[in-house]
């Protein structure tokens, strides 16, 4: 279930990407910071820019592809307006995160790596947010929330969806 968002790079996206590539030329180990800059800016790393990147950084397209797929953080498709990460690691498990996960999935009507029908929230698993003193924890965009239950997460979702 969930909505599938189409990759459509606008001209302004392409301009942004170009300027990031330009800015990272000559930086040692540039690939990682470059991909972060791209994803921060347009939300994902479009596969169609691999040739450009590989040329600028003197890598093969296969190397760029291998790099992107190796790291969980990078994604090659757009996500919803907000990203909700649910911690699945041990400390949160000790505080009932498994039940929380299934409740959140049921409430949103989606599984991990899917986006709600209204395009608002993409659900991702995460392995520790460093908030283990207050498990279970979730992260909405860049903010962590501790000692949450399904209701708290639902409130959070409606808060960002309306905001």
């Amino acid at each position, binding site marked *: 279930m969930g909505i599938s968002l189409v990759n459509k790079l606008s001209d302004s996206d392409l301009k942004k990407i170009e300027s990031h590539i330009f800015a990272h030329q000559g930086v*040692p*180990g*540039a*690939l*990682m*910071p470059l*991909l*972060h800059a791209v994803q921060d800016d347009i939300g994902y790393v479009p596969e169609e820019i691999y040739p450009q990147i590989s040329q600028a*950084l003197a890598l093969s397209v296969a*190397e760029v592809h*291998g*790099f992107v797929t*190796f*790291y*969980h*953080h*990078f994604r090659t498709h757009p996500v919803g307006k907000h990203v909700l*990460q649910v911690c699945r*690691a*041990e*400390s*949160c*498990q*000790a*505080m009932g995160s498994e039940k929380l996960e299934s409740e959140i999935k049921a409430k949103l009507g989606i599984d991990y790596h899917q986006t709600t029908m209204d395009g608002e929230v993409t659900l991702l698993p*995460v*392995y*520790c*947010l*460093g*908030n*283990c*003193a*207050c*498990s279970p*924890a979730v*992260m909405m965009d*860049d*903010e*962590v*929330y*501790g*000692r949450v239950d399904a209701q708290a997460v639902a409130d959070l979702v409606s808060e960002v969806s309306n905001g």
Partner: protein
Amino acid sequence: MAKVKVFVPRDSTALSLGANRTAVAIQAEAEKRGIDIELIRNGSRGVFWLEPMVEVETDKGRIAYAPVKPIDVAGLFDADFLNGGEHALNLGLTAEIPYLKNQQRLTFARVGITDPVSLEDYLAHDGYKGLTNALAMTQEDIVKAVTDSGLRGRGGAAFPTGIKWNTVLGAKGEQKYIVCNADEGDSGTYSDRMVMEDDPFVLIEGMTIAGIAVGATQGYIYLRSEYPHALHILNEAIAKAVAANYLGDDVCGSGQAFHLEVRRAAGAYVCGEETSLLESLEGKRGLVRFKPPLPAIEGLFGKPTVVNNVISLATIPIILDKGAQYYADYGMGRSRGTLPIQLAGNIKQGGLVELAFGVTLRELLYDYGGGSASGRPIRAVQVGGPLGAYLPESQFDTPVDYESFAKLWAVLGHGGIVAFDDTVDMAKMARYAFEFCSIESCGKCTPCRIGATRGVEVMDKIKSGKDHAKNIQVLRDLSDTMLNGSLCALGGMTPYPVISALNHFGEDFGLNVSIDKKLNEKEGVA
């Protein structure tokens, strides 16, 4: 009249419990009442079960009110909390709270007290004293001080930090690097995050001292992508250090250069392994390298490189400030100094507890932790992250000490302790250990790549009861192969949680423990 200073933490965990809303409410209420306050966003003291903890500076010292929700704020003003007034949430002097008072905070001396991004505050609380001393010493003497302090890598491997530095110092090379491993991915750990968010200058100072000691002019902090607040705070602190000449081409007028940059990781657990981390920093997939060569000889971009964890580097300033002996006087056996321990999981009073090595698990879990959060008995703890062993109640009197843990076939790792109550299914936790390994394996070596997936399958068979005895044996054999055949700790240590769970909690694996327990114990590891 001077404005009253009110402190509300900006640490992620405090924020995760609503510290921002509390701060906004206090500011608004003060304005409404026409009272001028100075609101300081300090780090967290690490007493996380009491966050958001608000402090007020008084003649007698800082007084804590906790936990403070927006709804409590008006009442606090009514109770004259700005002068330390009585209130149900008044905990008295912060420094006298037993949880804090009984700690031995060396690495975390400033954490929670200062404004993390104020260089003035850092300097006013003994900041940069270590660097000042280091700049008056020879490189050899700095390295010797680190060696003599007995400091061992706090990231998990526990390798003596001074010996690493000495190798890099002795290595020839125009360019050398200091790399800080801030890819803190272990469940149950957050001490790196706290240092970076709550006292970033101490890490910057530690890395600068390292650079000067071994002759490295460039440092990188490889920071996990799950820590956006740490990223911003570090960058802000680095900019201030550069502006004040604590970083740059001529550190404090010494003629020595040291530059520092934060690089974000991208969510690969294996990049916490130092050679994989270096690959990643070079812009490659984080595949583990064969050793030798050691990173100290051929590290980042093939150059001599010190790779140290956040806590190790953040401990350097106090060693150089107070002397090697001061630090070495804490601890037991070959575990010198203190360990910032993190209480997590099903624990009533979760938080950061820095103590000299030697404190027992039981003291940590009950005297500090207050037992489980659920109120049920604590059945197991996992120490040292997802690759750490599970310990049963019968081992809770073990002291926190690298060698004592090794004797039990357990590890201290990064000092994270995750508690589980008696509702835990340990066979499920063993299965999860394999699952985690299969998700995070870099794929370079077969025992880890294939073993993890096979492990999940075997656990499913064991749980279904099919060919039970045979599959328990398969589980042991598989663990043995991973333990001995994997290239790095990810595959090589996944058997720790698995086999410790099997040995100590056999009943969850469908074993008849009364008969099997002795057998298992005799068999030991695998």
